[in-house]
């Protein structure tokens, strides 16, 4: 109980002491909270995106077979389907027809695609929610396209995929095969790539090798690789955002260090007074410890709470610009709200602990001096 009373008394003094320079200390707290907010937003966001990619893309085709010509992805003849079909262990092989369409009016790239079954008329399209958000004005509910040979066609937007699937469908425009071939210019008998389903996932490596053997000009991509790409996609060790944020954090610590090492004459006198009236060195350090805790722990809580709200309630609005980059389309996320406690703990140890130490260490030298200095003037 004595211990608690002592700590609370030191906390009382620290708070009064900090409150004397409230504008300065509150702005310090806010800057610190902002940095923690940015860092934890990135951590939450990338964690959630990785989880999302894992659970969404597990339903991707087992294997995609591209044809490579001159080191580049090229059109694949549909005749390849049979050859792959003959490989033992494949259950279905299907040509995928997809491509990109640049709409000059909105300066946006869209993905045009032919679904396996498109039961609508040729002059209609189904669109992702992001398409209609960005396309610009429609003409009588119709989208204006230019075919590869320069002809203009109008396609009626009949169906929109909901916001919930935006993360995978925001820029999709689905259409019939004949319309697709007209717009994209991919000739009959060719497809963009082939999607292959495999009976037993464990055989995928063998089937991949057999595919390359049977068709040396192809490059198979396994689902495993796709998922791995996305898991390492937002790897925080690789992102420049993190580098920038660490820069910010470093700048903050330099600032804090400067503040802490340059104990003002006034602060030194105060420590002398405290020692003179009967405070022990450890009492002074304990009081300083609380000073560090008050700033850094408050900033940690505020920053993390704000980041959680930002990422999971506000769809990571602040990152929209960075993620969007030069593209126009930005999907609406509904990310799986989950936080990795391990990452949170790391953030805690990288922010709260060093700041608190930074507050205590410089005080040490002053606090161990003999208290009779206050008697001399």
């Amino acid at each position, binding site marked *: 109980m004595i211990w608690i009373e002592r700590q609370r*008394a030191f906390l009382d003094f620290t708070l009064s002491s900090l409150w004397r320079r409230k504008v300065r200390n509150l702005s310090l707290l806010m800057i610190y909270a902002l940095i923690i907010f940015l860092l934890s937003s990135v951590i939450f966001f990338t964690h959630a995106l990785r989880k999302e990619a894992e659970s969404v893309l597990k339903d991707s085709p087992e294997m995609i077979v591209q044809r490579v010509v001159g080191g580049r992805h090229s059109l694949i003849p549909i005749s390849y389907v049979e050859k792959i079909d003959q490989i033992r262990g494949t259950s279905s092989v299907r040509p995928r027809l997809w491509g990109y369409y640049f709409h000059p009016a909105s300066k946006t790239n869209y993905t045009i695609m032919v679904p396996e079954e498109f039961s609508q008329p040729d002059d209609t399209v189904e669109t992702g929610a992001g398409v209609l958000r960005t396309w610009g004005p429609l003409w009588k509910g119709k989208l204006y396209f230019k075919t590869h040979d320069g002809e203009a066609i109008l396609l009626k937007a009949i169906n929109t995929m909901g916001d919930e699937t935006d993360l995978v469908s925001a820029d999709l425009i689905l259409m019939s095969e004949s319309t697709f071939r007209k717009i994209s210019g991919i000739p009959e008998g060719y497809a963009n790539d082939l999607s292959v389903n495999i009976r037993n996932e464990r055989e995928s490596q063998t089937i991949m090798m057999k595919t390359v053997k049977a068709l040396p000009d192809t490059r198979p991509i396994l689902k495993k690789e796709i998922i791995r790409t996305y898991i390492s996609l937002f790897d925080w060790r690789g992102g*420049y955002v993190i580098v920038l944020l660490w820069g910010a954090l470093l700048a903050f610590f330099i600032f804090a260090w400067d503040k802490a090492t340059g104990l003002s004459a006034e602060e030194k006198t105060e420590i002398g007074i405290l020692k003179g009236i009967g405070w022990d060195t450890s009492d002074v350090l304990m009081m300083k410890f609380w000073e560090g805790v008050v700033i850094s722990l408050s900033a940690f809580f505020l920053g993390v*709470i704000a980041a959680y709200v930002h990422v999971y309630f506000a769809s990571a609005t602040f990152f929209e610009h960075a993620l969007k980059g030069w*593209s126009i389309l930005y999907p609406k996320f509904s990310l*799986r709200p989950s936080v990795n406690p391990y990452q949170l703990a790391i953030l805690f140890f990288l922010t709260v602990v060093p700041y608190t130490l930074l507050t205590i260490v410089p005080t040490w030298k002053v606090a161990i001096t003999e208290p009779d200095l206050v008697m001399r003037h």
Partner: protein
Amino acid sequence: MVRKSTAYLIFLLVAGLVMAGLIFMHPRLQMVDYERGLVKRQHLVRELGLTDLCLFTEARYTRHLSQADLHSPFQDYPMALEHFPSGSLVLPPEHLLKR
């Protein structure tokens, strides 16, 4: 007048509870809604045979990251500095880094 440390400790307690509530409770409450959307996304991925997330639509190799071939994504060579801002956020696909 309230003792300063009392006020501060109450603040810490409230902030801590809010944080814990968000981190441990909110995900559970949201799970049903989230799962509903996820099922739709998974369904669409299966039906259309999709391979990528629609995150960066600026270029074909950022839109379909996992499908990018050896040379087109990074223009001249795989580790070249990216042209697009999204390139500063993401690493080149792993199969390119490994070789």
